[in-house]
């Protein structure tokens, strides 16, 4: 059992067996995070460049922790500290990074496809940590891992995703992953925040949150960005909260043992009330904990593929 590529560019194209392998591996690695000394020597001498052109605290520190727990050496570049802000092209930056002989580049970029571009030009392994509104594969994997821990599996589960589907890479990656694994996905958003052509994807689509929540096993709220309101996608945050916000009354419509998720950062009182976010059904902080184990699994498995290609 192994992954077919040395890159993780997206969930789209991953097979069910590969997703299972990553989640099972994460399950085995999770124990390291509970040790007193949270470190194993597995990736000793490997170098990881964390190349974050878009702001991120959660994902970047999660990757960095995952790398450190596997004993890899890490270097961080962010938008403000790199020459990128001085007008260097992505290709030049990539070539310069590559000249330092890293084994991995973890990239977060506002342009969809930036990781794929790097993968074509670099000989190291590329991990997509979020590219524009395209994909955020490790977020979908940690969501799936969290769901699996609570529900035992993904097949046949009713998962409802509510929020800015149009601009969300998290929604996209989750939809690819959950439909591949046989879950039953419902997307819910105002028509202005729903991507065109969504009805062709393997999911149900609704604009009424009550309908979306009815009987759901998993409720995932997505962040609503203030910029979208300015762009005219909806009249006001208060109206969004009234029509689409996940609150206690609405959660009653979901299954009795439904869990509530959010990829962060949250706008309390907009897409989710503080009461629900801190409530007993919320697994939002568990998602963060699980993110480290899932990213360790991705690094471990991709490092194996790098070794395979070097041996070939």
């Amino acid at each position, binding site marked *: *059992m*192994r992954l077919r590529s040395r890159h993780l560019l997206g969930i789209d194209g991953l097979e069910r067996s590969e997703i299972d*392998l990553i989640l*099972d*591996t994460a*399950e*085995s*690695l999770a*124990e390291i995070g509970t*040790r*007193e*000394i949270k*470190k*194993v*020597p*597995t990736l000793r*001498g490997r170098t990881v460049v964390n190349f974050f052109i878009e702001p991120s605290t959660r994902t970047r520190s999660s990757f960095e922790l995952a790398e450190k727990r596997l004993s890899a050496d890490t270097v961080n570049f962010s938008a403000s500290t790199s020459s990128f802000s001085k007008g260097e092209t992505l290709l030049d930056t990539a070539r310069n990074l590559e000249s330092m002989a890293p084994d991995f580049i973890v990239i977060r970029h506002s342009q969809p496809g930036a990781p794929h571009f790097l993968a074509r030009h670099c000989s190291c392994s590329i991990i997509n940590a979020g590219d524009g509104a395209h994909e955020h594969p490790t977020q979908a994997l940690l969501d799936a891992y969290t769901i699996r821990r609570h529900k035992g599996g993904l097949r046949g589960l009713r998962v409802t995703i509510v929020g800015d589907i149009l601009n969300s890479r998290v929604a996209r990656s989750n939809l690819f992953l959950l439909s591949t694994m046989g879950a039953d996905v419902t997307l819910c958003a105002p028509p202005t925040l729903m991507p065109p052509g969504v009805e062709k994807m393997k999911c149900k689509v609704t604009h009424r949150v009550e309908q979306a929540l009815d009987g759901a096993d998993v409720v995932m709220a997505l962040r609503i960005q203030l910029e979208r309101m300015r762009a005219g996608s909806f009249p006001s945050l208060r109206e969004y909260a009234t029509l689409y916000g996940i609150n206690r009354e609405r959660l009653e419509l979901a299954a009795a043992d439904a869990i509530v998720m959010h990829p962060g950062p949250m706008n309390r009182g907009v897409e989710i009330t503080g009461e629900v976010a801190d409530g007993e059904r919320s697994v939002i902080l568990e998602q963060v904990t699980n993110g480290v184990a899932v990213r360790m699994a991705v690094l*471990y*498995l991709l*490092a*194996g*593929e790098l*070794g*395979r290609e070097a*041996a*070939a």
Partner: protein
Amino acid sequence: MPAGKSVRILDASSIDRALTRIAHEIIERNKSLDGLGLVGIRTRGMPMALRLAAKLGRIHSAEPTTGVLDINLYRDDLSLIAAHPVLKKTEIPFEVDGAKIVLVDDVLFTGRTIRAALDGLMDLGRPDWIQLAVLVDRGHREVPIRADYVGKNVPTSRDEQVDVRLKEVDGNDEVLLIRADGAGLASSEPAEEDRQ
């Protein structure tokens, strides 16, 4: 059945006798089983550890706790082998600090698996001491490691293969010595299940 001629060197009852003898030796050598934990190395060290614990329980009334260790994160050949081995869980349900641990594995060969297992255990805490029990010692050590309890010493040549089959994993109990039959067995790339 793998290629090459195979000879059965232990059958079910001799495996059972070997484990019974090891259980007695563990008691004889350590007098008390207080604070003793058995840790089986995946895959076949785990059922062996469980069997040993049951035997110790019958002889000594109190059954020692058992745990299981996956050594793949500690292998010394990760950068050499193609594709990383599938990871399974490490589960040690007792405090490793101050514990008395008997490490259990099926075959002792180069000793590299045991080296990895020792590193893995030490990362979990500081045991009082660690002893090693194996079903078969086939020689050809590459690091200075020896077993405290051995079911059977089997002189082998390097290109032979020792196959331990246990009911819990393989459906039956036996140990086979498989003679090299030309190419294949002497591969420099160990398979996933191979002992290092």
